[in-house]
């Protein structure tokens, strides 16, 4: 009798100190019945991917407001692939210009949520897009 819970890692890569958005999203996903692991601030891509591996998550969500998203987000993606975690649904959010968001999606991010995205939209997207088998 398998009862899988959706497990989500919410991470804050890099040096920005603003995590209100990440916490709002984490609380909303919790209220949707997901198990949300929050990493805390100032994590390196390596720390985030270590945590994702140990926690065996279905989803990694990265919140970044510092402007270094084109540096840090692709790095998380590459590390996940190197560790064999291709099936993890990878999403991002924060202050990310449209052309950068498009480039990140081309790279392999499932979705980039910008300002104005509702928490319901994010939770719906995750529920509809996590892999059934892993």
């Amino acid at each position, binding site marked *: *009798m*398998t*009862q*899988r*819970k959706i*497990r989500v890692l919410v991470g804050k890569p890099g040096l920005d100190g603003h995590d209100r958005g990440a916490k709002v999203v*984490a*609380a909303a*996903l*919790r*209220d*949707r*019945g*997901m*198990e*949300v*692991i*929050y*990493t*805390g601030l*100032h994590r390196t891509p390596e*720390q985030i991917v*270590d*945590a994702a*591996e*140990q*926690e*065996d998550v279905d989803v990694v969500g990265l919140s970044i407001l510092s402007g270094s998203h084109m540096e840090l987000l692709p790095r998380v993606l590459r590390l996940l692939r190197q*560790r*064999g*975690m291709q099936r993890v649904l990878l999403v991002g959010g924060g202050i990310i210009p449209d052309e950068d968001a498009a480039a990140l999606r081309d790279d392999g991010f499932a979705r980039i949520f910008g300002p104005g995205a509702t928490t319901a939209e994010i939770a719906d997207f995750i529920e509809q897009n996590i892999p059934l088998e892993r």
Partner: protein
Amino acid sequence: MGPADPALAELLARFRAGGVGALARAISWAEDGHPSVAALLEALHGETGNAWRTGITGPPGAGKSTLVDGLARHWVADGRCLGLLAVDPSSPFTGGALLGDRVRMDRSTGEGVFVRSMASRGSLGGLSLATGAAADLMDAFGFDELLLETVGVGQAEIDVAAAADTTVVVLTPASGDGIQAMKAGLMEAADLFVVNKADTAGAERLANELEMTLELRPSGAPRPPVLRCVARDDQGVAELAAAIEARREDDRASGRLDRRRQARDLARVRRVFSESLRARLWDGDGLQDRAREALAAGERPDSVALKLAARVLQRLQERAS
């Protein structure tokens, strides 16, 4: 099922090769009740028993995670590898959980440390039902030290004492006075007490009251030491590690460890037994519906429960004869 499951053989191979991802997936199997988890635990059973399990419990905000972070760093600096299971509560309303222990683990993650956050998933004793199995998996993986951190507990959630070799109860001056320490339950489960935030007002008084209360205990059993710590500043962490190790030597030499582990196995059998019976009968066999009908007909809850239990037993006897 069994060795016929190709996913099991594949996972076991990666697990035995030291794959962190395989350990993580194995714990998920235990949490989710994967059909092959029993076979996995069976295959690894002979490889368990080498890790020391230290339980860390206490009320919310006492500083458990910060203390665990300090202990982890202390042991890693000593060349040991370490696994941590950190349990946080699941919502009884939505089933969701926010697992925040990693926020305080910023100094100790990295080489030689494996951290797994677990949601309590409806279990009310401070751990989750899968904690025992997850600890066995980490033990078999080869960690020297295991830390089991409970949800913030009140007075009676003592699952951790049954799951750990050594139980550390963390208190602060905000936890109440010495009378709280005389109550049954959690306080009796401690092998070691930590008065954390020892630099705050009332800490020394609490520590003294604890020591006085412990003197009232019957002689024979070892008296739990009371340590003063300021986990945030790493004060007292080395002393705590030394106290855990002293207790461990003593428990090994006196045979207390063997008795404890036997009691732990028995408690786990009881727990898994009642959980599987409940799942089978209550959810699967329609007892829940029958209970609803009886209640709707105006029967008293206790008598409904006893009647249902009597009926199940009667059916079993009929089948046996």
